[in-house]
């Protein structure tokens, strides 16, 4: 058994980490979030150059044949730097769905996505914290060889900017799930874009008999795609937790009240200890689950354990970090509150910890 990152993974982390240290410090990130740009094109191109956009895809598809642990190794850094580029959405979800289908258009789009020439987005959520595919209610009506979609998808990360959308819907009432491709230019579709509390660009998208193409084969891969995206998103959350632990312990050891560092008060010291325990547990579960996924042994219950634990522990770490910082923790100026908002968003997407812990409880 070995749960460490390999030498190659450490090298990749080193390169990406150095780039982010230099070009994605908190101030730069804040300027980006406040700008009109949904994210940094430059950073996205740089990710392409590092091979990150090609990482999870098979070599014969133009990818690098990377594993889930390669993606996790990088995603922790994304969390540490509060990266707003839509990696999980465009690569792990929409990209993976394109890769899962042999259809021509899917392959063409995938090529562009890998090259950083197109953005694909994944339209899944319907407002109930739709974690399990069998809860997807949106219906695709067959019209000749094609389909039309009607209804609304919410919190589609990068949905307003995407060149193509990957939409999960049901093939007729009570029918099997299908994964559909909708091009940006499609008729009868309306996106309302917004920024999420954690600085990402998202959209709620209304479809009204919008023409869509079924991506053959992608449906069968849906569970694995979601599982891998949840792992990557959890890695982002764990990266954010680690950053919060470091920031908060530094602060507690330098901030003085009553003539001593606040970290010397037992109430504060014990909270730091709890934060460390929470982070360590979450990271252990992340790395173990990643290894299981890599060896093909991961079960839906393991994914639910990961998502539940990271969501719950992450929220606790964020809240503890704010409390320990006192008034400054309540400001927009410090990164602390932004880490917390990232953790809240990671928790809410693809089923909150409440949902996943109950799935675990169902056995």
């Amino acid at each position: 058994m070995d749960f460490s990152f390999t030498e190659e993974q450490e090298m990749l982390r080193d390169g990406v980490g150095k780039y982010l240290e230099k070009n994605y410090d908190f101030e730069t990130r804040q300027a980006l979030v406040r700008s009109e740009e949904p994210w940094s094109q430059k950073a996205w191109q740089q990710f392409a150059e590092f091979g990150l956009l090609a990482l999870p895809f098979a070599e014969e598809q133009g990818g690098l044949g990377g594993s889930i642990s390669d993606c996790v190794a990088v995603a922790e850094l994304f969390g540490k730097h509060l990266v707003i580029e839509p990696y999980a959405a465009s690569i792990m979800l929409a990209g993976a769905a394109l890769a899962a289908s042999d259809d021509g258009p899917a392959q063409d789009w995938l090529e562009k996505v890998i090259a950083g020439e197109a953005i694909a987005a994944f339209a899944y959520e319907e407002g109930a914290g739709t974690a399990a595919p069998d809860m997807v209610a949106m219906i695709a009506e067959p019209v000749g060889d094609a389909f039309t979609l009607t209804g609304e998808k919410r919190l589609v990360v990068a949905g307003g900017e995407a060149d193509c959308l990957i939409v999960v819907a049901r093939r007729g009432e009570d029918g099997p799930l299908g994964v559909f491709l909708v091009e940006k230019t499609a008729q009868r579709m309306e996106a309302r874009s917004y920024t999420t509390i954690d600085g990402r660009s998202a959209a709620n998208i209304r479809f009204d008999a919008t023409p869509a193409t079924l991506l053959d084969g992608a449906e069968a891969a849906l569970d694995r795609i979601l599982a891998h995206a949840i792992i990557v998103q959890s890695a982002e959350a764990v990266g954010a937790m680690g950053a919060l632990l470091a920031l908060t312990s530094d602060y507690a050891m330098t901030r003085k009240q009553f003539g001593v560092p606040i970290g010397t008060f037992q109430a504060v010291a014990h909270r730091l200890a709890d934060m460390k325990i929470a982070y360590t547990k979450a990271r252990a579960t992340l790395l173990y689950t990643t290894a299981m996924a890599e060896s093909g042994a991961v079960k839906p219950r393991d994914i639910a354990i990961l998502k539940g634990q990271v969501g719950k522990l992450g929220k606790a770490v964020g809240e503890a970090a704010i409390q320990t910082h006192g008034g400054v923790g309540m400001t927009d100026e410090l990164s602390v509150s932004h880490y917390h908002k990232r953790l809240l968003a990671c928790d809410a997407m693809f089923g909150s910890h409440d949902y996943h812990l109950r799935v675990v409880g169902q056995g």
Partner: protein
Amino acid sequence: MNIDFAPELEDFRAQVAEFFATAPTPAIREAGRKTTSVFAPFKECMEWHRILYDKGWVAPHWPEEYGGTGWSVEQRFIFAEEYRKADLPPLLPQSLGMVGPLLIDIGTEEQKAKYLEPILKGEDFWAQGYSEPNSGSDLASLSCRAEPDGDDYIINGSKIWTTYAHHANRMFMLVRTSNEGKKQQGITFLLLDRVDYPGMEIRPIVGLDGFPEQCEVFFEDCRVPQSGRVGEENDGWSVAKHLLKHERGGGNAASPTLMRYCERARAAAAETLSPFGGKLSEDPVFQRDIGELEADIASLAHFEKLAISGHEIARDPAFPSMNKTINSELVQRASTLMAQVSGVDGLARQLEALRVGSNVEPLGSEFDLISMPLYLNSRATTIYAGSNEVQRDLIARTVAGS
């Protein structure tokens, strides 16, 4: 023992409810529904303040001779209950709840004559300048300095977290006037009758919810009259301690607000899909979560009712700290539940739609619009007015001493 309010109080309740149903303007109602902090949107809040003033109901807790209502504690509680039920913007505490009662208790006749009426009328709004960048929980370590010079003080230093100072026209503050002896003994309590003195600058701080609520206040050789002093020079700590009784004191009936949050969460849950199918309100886990919360809120309500009945519970030296701790943590739990009900719909940052009078449609419901900002803002309840760690130390001392 008897739990009932006297029957004539029901008439009183009806009269209060009737007024709340008819008097507020639509903008004031909107401000009430969109209040995502203990501090309501300023403009509409002050408009509502003036309506209550005209009715004679703006300061129920003040003595009648100073403009109070002369109501019993039960009437005040009923008033608070109806107020919360109507989702009206809470009045701002600094003037009516802090500096006003303080001046009534220990201000000079001139100070009372000058300041009380404009507070009641809502013409003045006071900011509270206590905290400093290096003096939070350890407030007595404050260092913003006031040097006597003729009839004036010259102030140098800064204050922080001063809520709504950017809306205020007056400010009460603590300054250091001596470095001799214990740190508590060199502090003076000052009233500033303007906030635009030369050498004084106010800068808003944007909070984690995206709104400027607190401020930083800078003083550079800022000359203010000594006549604004309350109490003796270097005796400001005992003045501040006196005021603290008003800030942390009981009788402010938090439970009706908390119950309102639960009612709103229940109503939203009845419209929200559960991730397991059906409506969230039918989901047994939601029912258990909200049940646990409501039971705790009920206990707070019982605790508050015992206190207003004059029960010895309110004379416990730990009462203010217990009240603050229970209340602040319940606000956090209630808003956590609200954000949970909103789920992904709470993740959109919608600052513009939250503004009173905005014509931007919220993405989800109005409940979804407020739940996340309320959750984020409520992280502060366990920090301000004496952090809960500090309160627990105070409570622990009364346990150890019993």
